[in-house]
């Protein structure tokens, strides 16, 4: 009964629903994309800079323990309300798992393989692109997968700082005790999370080099 009413709500307000869905997806993809662009190169760089790595990884580990809502709440006094602060906060949320996994993966590459690569005359850039990065991809993508799920779920909370997205229906639904409307936000958001998890799980498997897959 509740689900039929929720469905009816979507049919009655298609523009509102799809615009919220679009904002939700934009926020998620934007935050995840920005986080990848920042955390992967940073993680690679940190893998050869021990001192900087200690500080950055400690910060990332603290960042990882912060509740999603707290991160969003912290963004508001600094950046105000709307899409941009929500994007900023979600990016911040996505950074730690990607950074930590990239750094860990790069450091786990067999030193003999790297030594042979340098000894044969690969440049530093060639070693990273042709050897270290391909060998690190599975672990890096495990981090991106965790970040993706966090961002898609976290984006629900963007509504609290006026960022829009599916969270709008949930907050409104709670405020008005309108259960169908709450479901209009909650069910698609849940499906998006599950979808993101599965998508990145597949990508992770596909990007594992053939020579390293379990037989």
């Amino acid at each position, binding site marked *: 009964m509740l689900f039929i009413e929720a469905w009816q709500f979507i049919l009655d307000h298609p523009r509102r629903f799809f615009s919220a869905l679009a904002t939700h997806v934009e926020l998620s993809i934007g935050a995840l994309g920005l986080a990848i662009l920042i955390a992967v190169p940073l993680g690679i760089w940190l893998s050869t800079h021990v001192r900087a790595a200690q500080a950055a990884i400690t910060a990332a580990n603290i960042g990882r323990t912060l509740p999603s809502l707290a991160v969003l709440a912290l963004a508001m006094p600094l950046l105000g309300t709307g899409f941009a602060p929500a994007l900023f906060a979600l990016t911040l949320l996505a950074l730690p798992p990607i950074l930590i996994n990239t750094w860990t993966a790069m450091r786990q590459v067999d030193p*003999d393989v790297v030594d*042979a690569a340098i000894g044969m005359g690969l440049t530093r850039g060639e070693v990273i692109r042709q050897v270290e990065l391909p060998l690190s991809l599975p672990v890096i993508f495990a981090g991106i997968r965790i970040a993706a799920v966090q961002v898609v779920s976290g984006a629900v909370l963007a509504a609290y700082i006026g960022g829009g997205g599916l969270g709008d229906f949930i907050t409104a639904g709670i405020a008005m005790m309108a259960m169908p409307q709450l479901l209009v936000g909650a069910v698609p958001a849940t499906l998006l999370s599950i979808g993101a998890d599965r998508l990145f799980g597949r990508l992770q498997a596909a990007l594992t080099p053939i020579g390293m897959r379990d037989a």
Partner: protein
Amino acid sequence: MIDLEAVTKRFAGAARPAVDRLSLAIPAGEVCVLIGPSGCGKTTTMRMINRMIEPDAGRIQVAGRDVMAQDAVELRRSVGYVIQHVGLFPHWSIADNVATVPRLLGWDEARISRRVDELMALVGMEPAQYRERFPRELSGGQKQRIGVARALAADPPVMLMDEPFGAIDPITRKHLQNEFLKILRQLKKTIVFVTHDIDEALKVGDRIAILRDGALVQYDTPEALLTRPANAFVEAFVGADRALKRLALVRADAALEPVIAAKHGHHVAGDATLRDALALMLAAGVDALAVVDSDGAVQGVVTMTGIRARTVKH
């Protein structure tokens, strides 16, 4: 071919230099073994030749060119590099691994493919069977075969080999030592070979450099090292059984004496060493063995008296 002049390397925080004013000349086409106890600087010395480590002082020349005056990456592409744990790229097929340096040098694919087949056949890895395999499917010995093929790919005149057989079981090791030496000698490579195993050094080296605390103690042929050790350290290092080791340097068919007795009850193959021959004589309780060639024809004899004369004279 390779000239080291007063080369010194000191690592930060170390009490003494890892390599201390070391000078060494390695003639073209020879195998030079660097050996010594751990921490003697043998690996550091080798790694300075292709600038994996950069010297603090002194000069290293390869084929008449100062390595520090060359681009490090270009230099490394022109020097073969083989390490103990091989370091094959696990995400690349065997063929791609062997093709590493030719690809860096921008060879066309047809030429690379021909070269890969040629090299895999050379190191005894059937190309049709192994080309598309991945490193983890190979045994330790097979991995090092591919490691050597990869190092030979662009036909470098100089090869650096850091304990290439150190991680391989003893039986395979012996086999690979014989096989690779034959290959590398045929190809007339100049080789710097690091090991801590004196038997391996005596077997593979044209010349052996014994290092201690970063300095050169003695640089000589295996024969000279065994007969005229420079000091007590070298004497101890080559071992109390150096007389036996000298016998291991000589093939039975290089020590032939004419056949006197009508018949010898025991025989030894011509390509066995005098050390093997001696062991056979002791086991059989005889004073002479017939030396036979690969067809079983008697070429001559080796005798206990002859062997004793060899270990005493010089």
